[in-house]
């Protein structure tokens, strides 16, 4: 019956909606722009996606655990400024170590406030977002920072180098993604993250120390952002003090686009990787078509709304809720 066919078509469209939209996007861009499907461009997309991707891996953990982390954007600013500024002062190894420690400390504060003091994660991390922004400006005194011996430092390996022909930053993203996938899917800790996000009360009733789990997810998220900052600092060899502005939303967008639920308890690293790639290709495609940078934001919003909508429509079997 025609009605039946329409029904199953809708079902496929809603369940695989984001993938179908992605494929259409790719095909469309390939037709319109002959530079889109070139090896150079694809590599550019992946390199661009690596920074958001590494951050998104950590945020995925936080979101599955039922919380938000909006502080990653300004933490990226602070960490990049730190690693770049300290590079010339105390050497790259110490600079990297200090940067990661500072990031972990920020994650620990977030984690303690959300996990142990049980404050709302939106408020805590939104507050942290502006607190770190302020901290960054205090540190730099409003000046931009850069690395002097750009051509000789081995620090360039992270953002500009390649290992066996593969850009290091892509390699870092892939390795981190695999590690995080294993942690989330194949360790007791990963299971605790899903349980704490899916039903915090039942998790506690099952003997899970929820506060510690939350703390660990925030520290992981901050650590990932620290790694992203090292890549970014190495690539640019300098940093503005607001370089990470807006990244928190891009990162969260990637996580949501992949299909990880903001309600917590479900999602995966694989989903986030797909979300990161979709976001990367959309941004790249729009740039190639000559749209201004800020048009991306608008399109990204539309794509996210569609993704979230299709996701929920697939779950309830229709586009509009009967409760609306």
């Amino acid at each position, binding site marked *: 019956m025609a009605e039946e066919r329409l029904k199953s078509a809708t079902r496929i469209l809603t369940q695989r909606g984001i993938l179908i939209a992605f494929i259409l996007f790719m095909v469309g861009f390939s037709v319109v722009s002959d530079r889109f499907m070139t090896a150079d461009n694809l590599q550019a997309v992946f390199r661009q996606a690596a920074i958001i991707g590494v951050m998104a891996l950590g945020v995925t953990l936080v979101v599955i655990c039922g919380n938000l982390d909006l502080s990653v954007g300004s933490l990226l600013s602070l960490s990049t400024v730190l690693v770049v500024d300290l590079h010339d002062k105390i050497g790259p190894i110490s600079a990297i170590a200090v940067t990661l420690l500072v990031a972990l400390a920020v994650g620990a504060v977030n984690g303690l406030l959300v996990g142990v003091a049980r404050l709302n994660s939106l408020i805590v991390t939104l507050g942290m977002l502006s607190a770190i922004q302020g901290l960054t400006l205090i540190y730099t005194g409003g000046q931009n920072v850069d690395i002097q011996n750009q051509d000789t430092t081995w620090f360039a390996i992270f953002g500009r180098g390649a290992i066996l022909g593969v850009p290091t930053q892509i390699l870092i993203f892939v390795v981190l993604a695999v590690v995080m996938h*294993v942690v989330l899917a*194949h*360790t*007791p800790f*990963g*299971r*605790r993250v*899903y*349980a704490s996000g*899916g*039903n915090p*009360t*039942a*998790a*506690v*009733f*099952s*003997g*899970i*120390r929820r506060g510690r789990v939350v703390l660990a997810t925030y520290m992981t998220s901050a650590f990932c952002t620290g790694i992203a900052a090292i890549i970014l600092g190495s690539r640019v060899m300098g940093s503005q003090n607001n370089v990470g502005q807006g990244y928190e939303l891009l990162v969260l967008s990637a996580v949501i686009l992949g299909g990880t639920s903001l309600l917590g*308890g*479900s999602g995966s690293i694989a989903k986030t990787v797909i979300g990161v790639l979709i976001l990367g290709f959309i941004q790249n495609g729009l740039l190639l078509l000559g749209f201004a940078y800020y048009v991306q934001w608008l399109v990204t919003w539309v794509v996210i709304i569609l993704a979230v909508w299709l996701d929920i429509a697939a779950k309830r079997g229709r586009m509009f809720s*009967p*409760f609306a």
Partner: protein
Amino acid sequence: MTDGPTLTLFHIGKSFPGVRAIDDVSLDIHPGEVHALLGENGAGKSTLMKILAGMYQPDEGEITLDGARVVMRTPLEAKALGVVLIHQELSLVKELSVAENIYLGDLPRRSLGRVDWKTLYARVGDILKRLKCGFTPETRVGDLSIANQQMVEIARVLTTTARVVIFDEPTASLTDAEKIVLFDIIRDLKAGGAAIIYISHRMDEIFTLSDRITVLRDGKHSGTLATAETNEDEVTRLMIGRSLDLTRRIEASTPGEAVLDVRGLSCGRLFQDVSFTVHAGEVVGFYGLIGAGRSEIAETLFGLRAPTAGTIRFRGEPVSIASPAHAISLGISLVPESRKEQGLVLELNCRDNITLATIDAMANGPFLSGSREAAVFEKYRERLRIKTPGWRQVVGNLSGGNQQKIVIGKWLATQPKLLILDEPTRGIDIGSKAEIHDLIRELARSGYAIIVISSEMPEVLKVSDRVIGMYHGRLMREFTAEEVTEDKLVQAISGIARSEFSACAAPLLQTRC
């Protein structure tokens, strides 16, 4: 109004991925009839009701109202046709007043769209009076007890001219006095010509209220009987395909060493000066009204509350239980009161839920061992006869009885010495209930020390070796299985005889808690 049925379902079918929820069910309800709908959990009652209320669309079949075919795409369309569902789960706005909730979306207006508070409160006041409710229209719903919130939900129906009213387990949280009021209202609605569908697990209510009974089993129509011409046995057989004796007393066991010894335990105003002992191989039942402090004792023993006084000895050693993790490491397990809120992570699958409390033991080095987890799941699936297509099944899709078995399996996997079960069979069909009762006795025989907390007297009497009656945070009396009777137990938790108790004291006691 015609002579025919108000509502007719013709060959309704509904499938979900992997499940045939409703299979060719036909039903008719006449004006002025109370039609009871029975079935085990998972038999399809809720799905059928959601179809009637416009929340689901049937895949097959049709519905007619007064002989005319109707399609209800949303609850609003259903309501417009006069079909109203009173939910098991409450759907009230806690921050608004009783009156606002009752007329939500249809508040009486004055000029310029202002709310006509005077009319609103007057109208609601009348309804509340009719319902014999002891609260005012201005009360904030969030400040009411669950039972009173249920009454607000019912009051809502009285504001519309409902042709078909569906009650889904309406008495689950009502006291005896409130039940009497509810039954009066149902009879009023019936006298007014409404067609009523009444879903309940409780046989006594169904036989008191209904004119006819329809039984569903595995999504199929198992039979429709005239209430006056049938009995509980026949209905039970239709439900589960065999007879069950729920009142049979299970044999006692011989207790061993004292596993838990509690002396003078208090927790603020929740309970005071509680002393008791539980031995290996015995079941101690805690009976009392809701709010008597039974669950709070369990939570204290499980490390969720800190006692303010008293000592706990576990296997001879004095212990101070700091957290659930600590309790588990000692060998104490708690099957909590609320399966969905405290017991299960509904998004996770059966296996992951069963291994959740023992997740560290599932690891081989740093990584989880799939085969070890699978082995644990299979062990408890077999032992507890959990009905599920496989370990990948998400627990949210299982029936209540099977969900409860998953929770019990999770706790047996921790190999506890003391197992506390808080309302182990609440909201579970009678087949699973009997299985769980048998399981509790079997566990006691194999040496577990067990505490069963229950609000159902037959359950307590059936499974316990000793029964402790609680009232207002205090232990009133302790009985052995031989000496305990219903009357004695009721006296213990209220201080008066059974007959007076059910007539007047029960509602008073319960509203005060």
